[in-house]
């Protein structure tokens, strides 16, 4: 491959890597907002009709569940991105 060709190939590879990253971020942020602002606040009142042990469900999402969800999201993102880095061979040695 000549220099300019390799440059364009690298360019489009980088672009694909970035758009995949953006899709993963978007997915994670949808879950992030839905669980905390959605289930924990906007839908809390109807959810409180259900319960988890002695917790009304909306209350549980607001004071416990959303925090656990945040944790899972961050570790999921780290794991998924490390995999993506390897796929596109941009991982650190």
């Amino acid at each position, binding site marked *: 491959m000549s220099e300019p060709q390799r440059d364009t190939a690298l360019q489009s590879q980088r672009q694909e890597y970035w758009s995949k990253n953006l899709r993963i971020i978007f997915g994670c942020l949808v879950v992030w907002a839905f669980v905390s602002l959605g289930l924990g606040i906007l839908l809390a009142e109807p959810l409180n009709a259900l319960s988890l042990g002695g917790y009304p469900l909306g209350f549980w999402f607001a004071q416990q569940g959303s925090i656990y969800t945040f*944790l899972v999201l*961050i570790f999921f993102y780290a794991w998924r991105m490390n995999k993506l880095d390897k796929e596109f061979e941009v991982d650190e040695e």
Partner: protein
Amino acid sequence: MSLQAMSFLVVGLTFALYIGIAIWARTASTSEFYVAGKGINPVANGMATAADWMSAASFISMAGLIAFLGYSGAAYLMGWTGGYVLMALLLAPYLRKFGKFTVPEFIGDRFYSKTARVIAVISLLVISITYVIGQMRGVGIAFSNLLNVPITIGLVSGMVVVFIYAVFGGMKGITYTQIAQYCVMIFAYTVPAVFIALQLTGNPIPQLALGSTAVGTDTFLLEALDNTLVDLGFAAYTSLSGMSQLNMFLLTLSLMIGTAGLPHVIVRFFTVPKIRDARKSAGWSLVFIAILYTTAPAVGAMAMWNFVNTVQPGEVGAETGNIQVDELPEWTERWQQTGLLVFEDKNNDGRIQYYNDQNEEFAAMAEEEWGWEGNEVTTLDRDIMVLANPGIAGLPNWVIALVAAGGIAAALSTAAGLLLAISSAISHDLLKGVWMPNISERGEMRAARISMAGAILLAGYLGLNPPGFAAEVVALAFGLAAASLFPVLMMGIFMKSMNKQGAIAGMLAGLISTLLYIFVFKGWFFIPGTNMLPDSADYWLFGINTGSFGAVGAGINFLVAYLVSRVTAGTPEHIKAMVEEVRVPRAA
């Protein structure tokens, strides 16, 4: 051993530990001073970040805040943890890849503008200085309330310890002391919580205990608490109260965005060796934070339960339902001496009534039927909810001493992180970046240490002579972080077309609109009486209170930046190339 002696012993031991670490972790280079040589293990950094993040407010005040707000207190729980998702996904890995020392440095380089860098420094200084006042105050209060030492002496000894490890150890010294402080803090927080959970529900895990039945009954703890509070004229614990749903939504969002934009937290992710460490480290930070943040709702609810049942052991309205003044338990005496808890037998019946006398209908009924003449717990400081916990649970003196050491550790660890952010903004961004670009590394090191010492003196002075607005600063710090720094950091990474003009206009618009909104309702520079509109829901724009405005300010920042960048010259090619580089982990 007396409580006093025990407390001094425990606090003294922790101080000796911090100083020992300081001697071991001296620094030699600016890289070590600013970012600990980028050599911190991601799990260790997570623990240090947790201590850096969890302030005196998290440790001492948050559970009490939740106890009084009930369900609505979740705005703080979700806001102060949800920001880590934003930081981990949108900022930390890219800023680490950029590989410099400070947050304003990224803004200055990315937007090829010293003006942008200086505006970022100003935001950073306002945020960090207002925040650090509360921490110094927290150190003094922990000393005075738990050790009976005057605030001045407590504060000065705290300053001396921070001075030793922050001035000599820089980020490296601060990181390792923060790890030690995290351990002290989390142990001090969870031990009383576990004992109280056991006493009330028989389940030692606070997170599960809050969803369990009260010992000896079939009623769930939260249900029983709801019923008792409603019987006393309050809102049910598990229902929205104290703020509208819109304000709870915006407050949560403002705290989330503000958390992600706090410079002293972001800079912690500059200290790990690799990009993948930065991603993982954010997760570990939240693990260590979540241990405290998921325990706090249990501590808050159980403290409220204990308090209400102490005052109202029998049926509400029954003649003998309330506790007699001379039968108040011993722990209440100690807190009455501090003035954080005040009883006043208004109707002279020799008993104490705690109920919601702001609820007019209920108050009228209580007076008519039972002869209650007003709420007789006239002061119930929210900080007691955590500080008095070991006493309420009847735990031994060493646990009370531990809580004192924990509160001090929480305040000192956050103060140190803030002080480092302040001093590096001065020595690295202003001095080296703008005024004296040719300064040598040794000269910069000396400047960094001198500005650190200056920042400690300033923080100590402000802690002793707090400006009248001390209580308002949290809203200010988070509102400004959300409205000024987070949006431009994010656009710097995710929008290649964002240019210098857009970033400067955006930061200024976010900063100024948020400050104005706060000042209009709280008074210019918080000077009492200078507010232009009364601080109540009738006057707020769309009913949004000042603490919830940060999310709106962030929106203004994004919008203005976008519009201005569309009508001004494009980003130079070398900046676009820089953004491309920041987006991939492997070094080019």
